[in-house]
């Protein structure tokens, strides 16, 4: 079980390897266009909302394969609310943020109450939100604006989620970005080596040294390539900081805390969880409250990226988040899944999207390809689990 084998490592990281292969395929397919600094940056900026919503959806799915269908519509609605206060009513940015987060908390609490305490099936409760918030958001926009869109957000507002930190002109090497990238790379190497040393000291089985080195080299390579791409496109996008913050916080919560363990247990076996002293209802409530707060963040990111709140914002976002989770190996029945897996899943779909668009392939074919990837990922997951059992 603990013994090291290359086969196991490959099997465990099959999605990561697939992601690499597909990325390389598209770089070649687009004649290198996919690998230009501006396209690397836009890959991150375009998919920022998927990472944020994917984390929220992951927490919901952990509790038993529960989903939230309302996130896309709620993104539209929250964009409209933010626009009304910030642009139309000239409310200051801090107060606007305060209001939108407040509205998100209220919706999350209502949704959590309906699902956890009144036991309404999540997909029905959130289907109501899916319908209502699209209508509500559109109505607000039509009422306050002739173009049924709100734009011209103040810079103090957009600056929080868009642009670059320590921005430098395009094509010039951005020094702060390189420094931060180098620090991140060094940190990864240190974590890998220190982790191995600690395991050996405590007498646990550890991966062989050569493997840790290979792993570190690959990880450092990815970080440095990303760093230089970003550095030549003006620096680190502000939104990337949000993404990393959310991913790290939730990665720690799910992997290292009792809170994460409670989520996994409720999804693994709700009755066992209850009889082990876990408050199942509170966990369900927390999952949907959390989802709504992250949806607000996604709404702010999307609205500022496009510079406007419009009635079509957030369409199919819920499906993107669910797909990212499923492709990333999150169990559709609950109890299993990682933030890292979801990130791989989201990136994989993002890469296919961008790659095929750059190759000027028709949108319909892109949809077909994404559907196929989703199905292949699930089938592969089930087959490999069957294989494991037979061992």
């Amino acid at each position, binding site marked *: *079980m*603990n013994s090291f084998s290359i086969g196991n490592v490959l099997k465990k990281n099959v999605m990561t390897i697939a992601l690499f292969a597909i990325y390389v395929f598209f770089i070649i397919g687009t004649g290198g266009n996919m690998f230009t600094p501006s396209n690397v940056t836009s890959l991150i900026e375009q998919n920022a909302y998927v990472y944020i919503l994917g984390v929220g959806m992951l927490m919901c799915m952990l509790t038993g394969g529960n989903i939230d269908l309302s996130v896309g519509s709620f993104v539209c609605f929250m964009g409209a609310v933010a626009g009304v206060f910030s642009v139309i009513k000239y409310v200051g940015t801090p107060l606007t943020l305060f209001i939108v987060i407040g509205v998100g908390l209220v919706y999350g609490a209502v949704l959590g109450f309906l699902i956890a305490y009144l036991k309404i099936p999540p997909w029905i409760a959130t289907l109501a939100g899916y319908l209502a918030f699209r209508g509500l958001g559109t109505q607000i926009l039509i009422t306050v604006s002739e173009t049924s869109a709100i734009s011209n957000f103040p810079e103090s507002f957009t600056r929080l989620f868009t642009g670059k930190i320590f921005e430098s002109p395009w094509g010039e090497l951005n020094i702060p970005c390189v420094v931060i990238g180098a620090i991140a790379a060094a940190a990864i190497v240190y974590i890998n080596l220190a982790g191995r040393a600690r395991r050996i000291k*405590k007498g*646990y089985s550890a991966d062989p040294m050569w493997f840790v080195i290979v792993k570190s080299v690959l990880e450092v390579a990815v970080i440095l390539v990303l760093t230089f791409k970003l550095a030549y496109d003006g620096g680190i996008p502000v939104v990337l900081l949000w993404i990393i913050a959310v991913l790290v916080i939730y990665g720690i919560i799910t992997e*290292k*805390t*009792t*809170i994460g*363990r409670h989520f*996994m*247990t409720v999804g*693994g*076996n709700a*009755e*066992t*969880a*209850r*009889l*082990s*002293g*876990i*408050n199942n209802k509170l966990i369900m409530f927390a999952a949907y409250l959390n989802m709504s707060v992250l949806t607000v963040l996604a709404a702010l990111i999307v609205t500022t990226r496009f510079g406007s709140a419009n009635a079509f914002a957030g369409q199919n976002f819920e499906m993107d988040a669910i797909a990212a989770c499923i492709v990333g190996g999150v169990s559709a029945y609950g*109890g*299993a899944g990682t933030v890292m897996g979801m990130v791989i899943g989201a990136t994989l779909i993002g890469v296919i999207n961008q790659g095929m668009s750059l190759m000027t392939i028709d949108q319909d074919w892109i949809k077909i390809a994404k559907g196929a990837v989703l199905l292949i990922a699930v089938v592969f997951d089930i087959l490999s689990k069957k294989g494991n*059992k037979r061992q």
Partner: protein
Amino acid sequence: MVGLTDSSKTLIKDIGTGKQQLVEIAKALAKNARLLILDEPTSSLNETDSRALLDLMKKLQKEQGMTMIIISHKLNEVSYVADKITVVRDGSTIETIDARGQEISEARIIKGMVGREITDRFPKRHDVPIGDVMMEVKNWTVFHPEFAERKVVDDVSINVRRGEVVGIYGLMGAGRTELAMSIFGRSYGIGISGSLVLKGQPVYLTSPKQAIAAGLAYVTEDRKGNGLVLSNSIKTNTTLANLKAISKATFIDKDKEYMVADEYKQKLRTKTPSVEQLVGNLSGGNQQKVLLAKWMFADPDVLILDEPTRGIDVGAKYEIYCIINDLAKAGKSVIMISSELPEVIGMSDRIYIMNQAKIVGEMKASEATQENIMACIVKSGSEA
């Protein structure tokens, strides 16, 4: 043909499990089966229904020449009906005993199952003094959560002392699990009345969380359904009911968790290559050990064990009995719910007999025999 007297239009959910089992057999017969394989057909039946089913098997064999294979944990059943007995252990055939023309004793079968002769099916109790009353339940009444007028526990009063093993014997459906779960933080039933006293202090528990904090543990009869998370590792299952002990400010100390799980694995002699193994991959006996480890790690004063040896083999049973004795020795109070008479008599200090939601008798284990326990039940049944 199978001896059902109900109307053929009765819904399956409206008849008892014993009759449901008969319908199952009728279903097989209707397909003109020539070979009938019965997998633990009596595991959810009481003694009377079990006997009726076994007699039906004999009848089918005699009158129709039907070939039947019965898979069972209950040795008395096997020796009652079988012509040939094959002992299977760890996935391979150990021996086949021809039972025709001779009486096969249970000891003979057990010998095949464990590979040695078990002279004593129950380990000797440690000689421990029985202390003060640890938990007392008075006038406990519980109603069914769906049929609110039905009493599932009716005015029950029991107590258990420090270092004591108290058996609760009763047939399936007597209300034992309902009693246990309602005590454990009101996790079953509605309209619960009565008082619960722990270490002399009256307590009012409204959730399993509070019950655990108060020093109770309920080790379920349904380990797969509500005892373990099969898709998780032994490690995470072991620490589940007491995550606080291995975490600081919600951060789990994974090294400590591993050590705790490994310690219990060795203490309970759980057979597994590693505590990282998924619980779903273990045998029933080893799963039961993980379940016990989970609740032992929660460090309760009172353990309620609901059918702790159901569906596990004789060797593992013996080990579970040893663990129960060790718990009593460590000053824990153990309530053992069981529908196996020899087990209740062999393991308990004191026995409560439960029938139709009521406690119908109490006796010291030294005075208990299979006959006088059954007499209690029959007597209460005829009074009702």
